[in-house]
């Protein structure tokens, strides 16, 4: 009987134990279930963003490169790394190996490297601009040495702009600042194309921004930026900058520009603005260095002086105010709006035709033309030539110039005379070059442009030449070109190129300071186009604020000739005249 009772008790005990275990398991499962339910409920009720693109893994696109007209790199990218190490992951036995790595590959001092390795910190930054070649060497050494592992290093790559010639056409190219924003030049104007589009890999995250599941959702690859092809030829640009640098040194000018345009298309072949900057050492720039960074050819205005006289003549011929065969009596001075207008040195030239008027750069002749036209027609023609308005060039911060017109309170009748020979009116060098390009292109003004193509990974977007408007009839454009070429042969030999005919005009403008002209300073310039009869180049040379008697004919004309000679050689333009005859 005792045995029977004992067996029954054991079974009961066993059953109780089993029930306890089941209960315990049930409680555990219930707790787990409760935790899961609470978590899921928390996500549901707290409005968790499951796939949030803003919190996704962002894949950076490569910024597009900029190349010249021949496809040579002007701006490209390189990869640099921020390199860090996690010393707390290192074993004491491997310390020497890593010490050698830091000193020999990364170039750290042994003492500094030792301090880093002994710090036992989770992360220590070793460098922020480590070249990819150094990182490659670091990884190679880790691969070769069984005691070293690359996983203790953190390598964060990023791209950096690289310039083939960091001083060449800096103000045209612009720059990318350390925060990735583009400033000035082509970099700013074509930022949308160059920048590309970010890719992303969406993640499942909770509201604290923590990834619950990585790589959740759609993967979108980054779209690399487009390659921008300029119309500028870097060899022509280099020659323009070489000539300008020499001129700035020789004449101690404040600034200078050399512009070369193709009048048939409006393409800019060279745009030298000096003094410039070195794009690799921008941190050395001071606050007042704006004009070294900005593109002065398109953004800075100046009084052009006598280079405007051919425009005045063209306007008078186009409006039929005078005929090409007309002459006028130059007495050395005349009065317009109660103000005396005089030739340089008050010299009376007597009876002059238009060729002689340009050759002698007679202010009275230009004023006579403007007075004959009258304010309405004169300013209407200046507007048609694009003065007082932007040209629409594909550059940021283009200035529109300053031109007073008759319906303004500040305009005076005497402005009609002074404006006719380029005083009391301001414009950019680009506006002057574009106006001359219209004279050279049978009276048709083309929109100036610096970009020929935008090459996307999946196609090419060509920038076709665009006509702005017809400014003159072809006949008048031809007449003015011929008169200018004859004027050059009469009195501007400094600008002539043997074997070729060019049409051009010099200018020597005063420098306005506080409402007066500073007679110690001058802005000499020369603008012309050729070779006739089918001009391929418009060349503008301008030096600003030269001390002393710096005449455009003596200072800027020889630079014009050198630039023209280079262009004719470089583009293999056959001579239009026998060399012996041309002299």
């Amino acid at each position: 009987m005792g045995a029977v009772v004992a067996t029954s008790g054991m079974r009961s005990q066993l059953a109780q134990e089993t029930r306890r275990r089941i209960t315990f398991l049930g409680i555990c499962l219930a707790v787990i279930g409760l935790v899961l339910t609470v978590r899921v409920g928390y996500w549901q009720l707290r409005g968790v963003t499951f796939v949030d693109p803003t919190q996704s893994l962002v894949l950076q696109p490569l910024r597009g490169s900029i190349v010249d007209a021949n496809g040579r790199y002007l701006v490209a990218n390189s990869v640099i790394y921020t390199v860090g190490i996690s010393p707390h992951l290192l074993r004491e036995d491997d310390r020497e190996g890593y010490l050698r790595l830091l000193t020999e590959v990364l170039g750290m001092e042994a003492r500094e490297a030792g301090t880093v390795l002994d710090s036992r910190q989770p992360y220590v930054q070793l460098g922020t601009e480590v070249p990819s070649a150094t990182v490659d060497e670091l990884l190679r050494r880790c691969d070769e040495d069984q005691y070293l592992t690359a996983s203790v290093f953190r390598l964060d790559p990023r791209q950096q702009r690289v310039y083939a010639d960091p001083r060449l056409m800096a103000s045209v190219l612009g720059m990318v600042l350390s925060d990735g924003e583009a400033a000035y030049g082509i970099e700013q104007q074509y930022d949308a194309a160059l920048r590309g589009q970010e890719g992303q890999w969406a993640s499942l995250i909770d509201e604290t921004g923590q990834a619950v599941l990585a790589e959740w959702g759609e993967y979108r690859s980054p779209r690399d930026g487009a390659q921008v092809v300029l119309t500028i030829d870097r060899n022509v640009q280099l020659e323009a900058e070489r000539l300008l640098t020499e001129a700035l040194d020789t004449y101690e000018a404040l600034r200078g520009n050399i512009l070369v345009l193709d009048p048939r298309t409006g393409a800019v072949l060279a745009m030298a603005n000096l003094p410039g900057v070195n794009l690799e050492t921008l941190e050395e720039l001071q606050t007042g260095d704006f004009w070294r960074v900005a593109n002065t050819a398109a953004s800075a205005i100046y009084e052009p002086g006598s280079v405007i006289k051919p425009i005045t003549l063209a306007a008078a011929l186009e409006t039929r105010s005078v005929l090409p065969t007309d002459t006028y009596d130059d007495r050395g001075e005349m009065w317009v709006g109660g103000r005396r207008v005089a030739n340089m040195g008050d010299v009376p030239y007597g009876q002059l035709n238009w060729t002689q008027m340009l050759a002698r750069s007679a202010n009275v002749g230009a004023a006579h033309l403007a007075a004959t036209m009258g304010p309405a027609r004169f300013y209407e023609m200046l507007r048609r030539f694009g003065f007082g308005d932007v040209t629409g060039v594909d550059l940021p911060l283009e200035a529109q110039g300053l031109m007073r017109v008759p319906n303004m309170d500040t305009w005076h009748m005497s402005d009609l005379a002074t404006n006719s020979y380029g005083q009391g009116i301001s414009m950019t060098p680009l506006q002057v070059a574009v106006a001359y390009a219209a004279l050279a292109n049978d009276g048709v003004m083309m929109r100036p442009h610096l970009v020929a193509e935008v090459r996307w990974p999946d196609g090419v977007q060509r920038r076709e030449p665009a006509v702005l408007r017809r400014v003159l009839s072809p006949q008048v454009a031809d007449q003015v070109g011929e008169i200018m070429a004859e004027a050059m042969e009469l009195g501007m030999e400094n600008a002539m190129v043997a074997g070729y005919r060019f049409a051009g005009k010099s200018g020597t403008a005063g420098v306005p300071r506080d409402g007066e002209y500073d007679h110690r300073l001058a802005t000499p310039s020369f603008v012309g186009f050729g070779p006739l009869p089918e001009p391929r180049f418009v060349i503008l040379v301008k030096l600003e604020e030269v001390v002393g008697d710096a005449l455009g004919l003596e200072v800027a004309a020889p630079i014009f000739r050198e630039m023209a000679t280079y262009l004719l050689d470089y583009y293999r333009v056959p001579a239009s005249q026998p060399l012996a005859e041309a002299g």
Partner: protein
Amino acid sequence: MKINRDSVPTIPSEGGGRQGATSLNVGRIVYVASLVLASGLAAMLLLRQADDIASLKYDIRVLINRQETLRRLRTDLEGRIAAQESVERILELGEAWGYASPDGAREIDLVYELAGQP
């Protein structure tokens, strides 16, 4: 003392008990086994799919990383080409090798009119 056999409590036959339990447990075991099998199959399918997905994701990740590496290499190569193409560097090299820029070269079109030809 005479013992009344009927009053002696008997131990229930284990065989009978076992027989009853066996017939009940077989049905349950088959039922549970079927459930476990079905669940196992489903779980195996799910795991297989999850494995395939994870494997594919890993492959994609590797390929994307490879793509990123290649893009970095290309970028770096472009940068090196740009540095090598520097026109100032080329001119300096040219000068060092004794070359000079042409001065005053001209392109002239020469037309010969041969006697006797129309």
